[in-house]
Every structure is written in C-alpha cells, then in structure tokens.
C-alpha cells in the first residue's frame, strides 16, 4: 500500500513564518486530520499546506477553526467534508462528495469535481473552477455553490435551500424534486427535473447572484443578466394522487 506509517517527530515543518507543511507521502491522512482537529481556537498556526495528496480520501474533513488549508494536487472522496469556518483550497481535481455537508467557511476547487459535490451542505461557500459531475448540490440545505464550468445530470436534486450558480451548462433533470433553493444557470439546461421550473429573474435575485459572483471574485467579469433562474414549482411538496405520474 502507498500510505507510509513512518514516524517523524515533527511532521509539520515550518517554511514561512506562518505556514505549516504536511506531506502525505510521509504521514497519514489520519495524522493530518488529527493535527488540524487538535488546534486551539487561538492558534497561530493558521496557514497549512498539504503536499502529495495522491487522490487520498477524507483529506481535511471535519475542520472547525478559521484556518486556511491548501492541498497541492488531486484529492479523493469527501475532501473538506463537514467543513466549518475553515478555508480549504484544492489545487487540482476532487473526487466524490467534496465539501459534503459543509456548514460554513469556504471550499475552493481549482479543477473539476466528481459527483455529489456539496451534498447536503447547510451553509458556507463551495466554488469550483472547473466542471462538476452528476448530482452537484444534491439535497443542499443552505450552501452556496458556484461552478464556473458545467454541472452534470440531476444537480440540485431535492435541494432545500441555498444557491447553485452555474456559469456553464446544466445536465438533465436539473432541480429534480426541488423544495426551495435558487438555481442560476448561464448556459443551456438539458432538461428540468420534476417540479422544477424557470422563474422570473427579479432585482432581488440579480442582487443575490451578484453577491455570489462577488464572493467568487468574478462579479466584474460576469453579467448577472446573462443568467436564468430556476426553482421549485411547489406542486409536489405533499403527496397528491393527481400528481402520481410526476413522482
């Protein structure tokens, strides 16, 4: 196996004054996560860099401190899951379920992400510079997701709250069985899922979208009026026999 159990007395060597480096060639993911979890609220070790992630799963999960973690390379599943307050950047692609159940803080992926990005997220920001695969924002409950590329099929499936902003296209069945949440798509939508409909883009929505673009640093580059808004038709909240064919 590739993970090394080599024991080094001080794995987090300091390069810059304030930056700590963790190399996953010489340490395990568990050691990294335990180290990050053990930091105190008033820690001075606020900047972390993770080298050689080599597609490993569960890197930087469960963080609950205002620290910054940069991961240099592609990561596996569930990276930055359950994130609270921390700012996590992936300099590469991310596997299934990046930032799943994110609570607050910010997760930024420079490359593409696999399916179920930001799944069930209840707050915070997830920014994806590349494309997201299927089921992006599935069951989202308040997270704000911004994808600079396109999203795959069944994105925002059963979405309950938050925003999904897509600068590219959306795949089939966007917003299937959506409760609430606002979906802003600039490109084409292959098809809308059950109970998802296009809605008017009013000023309040343009303002909200502008805020989302602003938090991703692209407010000046992208025109809010080039987006269309999609949301819930609110016909399938409660079971009704007349809607049986739509479920």
């Amino acid at each position, binding site marked *: 196996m*590739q993970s090394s159990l080599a024991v080094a007395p001080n794995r987090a060597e300091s390069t810059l004054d304030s930056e700590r480096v963790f190399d996953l060639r010489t340490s395990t993911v568990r050691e990294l996560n335990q180290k990050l979890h053990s930091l105190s609220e008033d820690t001075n070790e606020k900047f972390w860099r993770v080298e050689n992630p080599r*597609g490993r799963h569960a890197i930087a999960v469960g963080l609950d401190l205002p620290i910054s973690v940069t991961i240099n390379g592609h990561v596996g*599943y569930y990276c930055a899951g359950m994130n609270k307050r921390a700012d996590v950047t992936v300099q590469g692609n991310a596997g299934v379920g990046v930032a799943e159940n994110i609570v607050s803080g910010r997760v930024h992926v420079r490359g593409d992400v*696999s399916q179920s990005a930001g799944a069930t997220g209840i707050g915070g920001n997830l920014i994806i510079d590349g494309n997201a695969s*299927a089921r992006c924002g599935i069951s989202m409950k308040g997270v704000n997701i911004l994808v600079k590329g396109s999203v795959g099929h069944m994105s925002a499936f059963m979405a309950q709250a938050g925003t999904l902003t897509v600068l590219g296209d959306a795949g089939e069945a966007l917003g299937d069985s959506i409760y609430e949440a606002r979906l802003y798509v600039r490109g084409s939508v292959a098809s809308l899922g059950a109970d998802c409909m296009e809605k008017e883009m009013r000023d309040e929505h343009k303002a909200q979208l502008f805020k989302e673009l602003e938090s991703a640093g692209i407010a000046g580059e992208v025109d809010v009026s080039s987006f269309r808004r999609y949301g819930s038709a609110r016909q399938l909240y409660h079971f009704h026999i007349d809607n049986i064919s739509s479920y």
Partner: protein
Amino acid sequence: MCGIVGLFLKAPRLEPEFGALLANMLETMTDRGPDSAGFAVYGSPQAHAIKLTLRAPVGTDFIAIATSLKDAGLEVREMIPRDTHAVLTVSKNEQSKVVEVLARVAPEVKVVGTGHRMEIYKEVGLPADVARRFSLKEMKGTHGIGHTRMATESAVTTAGAHPFTTGVDQCLVHNGSLSNHCGLRRQLGLKGISFATQNDTEVAAAYISNRLSEGDTLGQALEAGLGDLDGFYTFVVGTESGFGVLRDPIACKPAVMAETDDYVAFGSEYRVLVDLPDIEKAHVWEPKPAHAYFWQRGN
C-alpha cells in the same frame, strides 16, 4: 463495490513496464475488492498461432500436458505455466484439435481465454497475491484491464472473478450490476452463444462479443449497449487492438481517466493513476455518462 483498472499504451517504450504498471494499479484497488482479482494482458502475437489460457487445479503439471499434446502429434509452440494458469501457444490450424485432445488427456483443465494476443488470469485472494502468483509484474504488453472483486450477490469463486471473456481477444471488466441479464442471456443463447457462469457481467461480455461478430466496431458495440443493457455499470473493454470505456446514464459507479502522449489509463478512483509516468502532466477527467470512449491501436 469492486475496483476496475485499465491501461492502453501508446508509447512502445513503456511496453516492457506494462505488467509492473498494471500490477500497481490493481493492488491500489484492494480496498474496493479484496475477495478476488483478475486481469487480461495483450502481449505480442506469434505468426499463425493462437494463445490458449488454461486454468487447472493447484499442482497441475502443465509441462506433462504439453508432452501429451506433442505425443498426440500436435505442435506446441510454447507452454508457460503460471501457478493455476498456463498459456499454451499452438498453431492456429490445430486449435480445435488441441482443445479436443486437451479434454481427453487433461479433463481437469479448462480453456478460459483464446486470443492472438490476449492472456487472462484470475484467482480468489488479495489482488497483490493474485498478481504475484501470476508474475504480472514481469509481463510485457500493449494494453490490458484488471478487476478487484468485492462479491455482493454470488459466491467468491475463480469463475466469478473478472475479467470475463466471450470471444477471441475480447474481454471485459465491470463495476456494477445488470438487471436484464436473464433476458439477454436467453436472447444471446438463441444465437448459439454459451455461458460458463450465471454471472451478469458474462452476459455483458457476450453482448459486446456478439455485436463485434456481427460487424460492429468497438465504438458501435458500446453505443448499442447503452440501449440494451439495463442496470448500473462502468465497463472497461479490451479487444485485440482496442480499449473502450462505457458508463451507464445514471453513472453511480465511479470512473477516472488520464491521457498523455504515452498512454490512456482508467481507474475506479484517481488513486489508481498516481504512479503512472508523468501523471502530473496528464489530462485527468471523469468519463461522461452514456458516452462511449474507445481507442484503437494502429497496426
């Protein structure tokens, strides 16, 4: 769960390292499939010859079997035993005679793969052990596929391990499960295709083989599969000169691919690909649902 891997070389200079690269990929997928493992390797062909991959109980004396074949007046170009398997290279003209004599002199031996270039190996056990037993690391090749199995619905047996082969130089590995394999098996059975197991994946392999035998290209066969195969699947398929990938439209089963000037590689997860040469410079992407990907070697 299961893990699948595939490697298709474009650069001949990597061919001597092929087995070592594939073995590493296979071993990385141990935690997705620790029950059994298997792989198919496409090596170099011999003129007017065919390779038969044989499988037999532990301790079978393959060299004695080769002697029996020679005694029966048959030409044995090569017999390379590897643990429970052996690759027997014979003259193409004598293929059916060899199979006939084998059944008589060594009824415990099964012919599990036939190809000009393909050799196929699978066994129960940890992927690293399986790779070691068959000396995968020493094998040269141009392309190949592999599978690590976590059995969920049928017994952990050698016959239930992947890859499945249903045609000359054709094989397939699968992550997922098919829901219409019984009906398809009946339909393919009516065309005279026989099955060695009750496994759903064998039906998918036979489906592709049947399409190819009816004149489809690999790409056409994969695209047709999108309409006819119902269920969850990520397939990686090998033919004598081709390599293909297909995911079902729902695409629950994971897949990552990488391509450089030197190779195309497939893994259930990115971890599989991390030790490939120049992976940092590779184009890494997730293959799209319901889209047939295929590569063909120029001969």
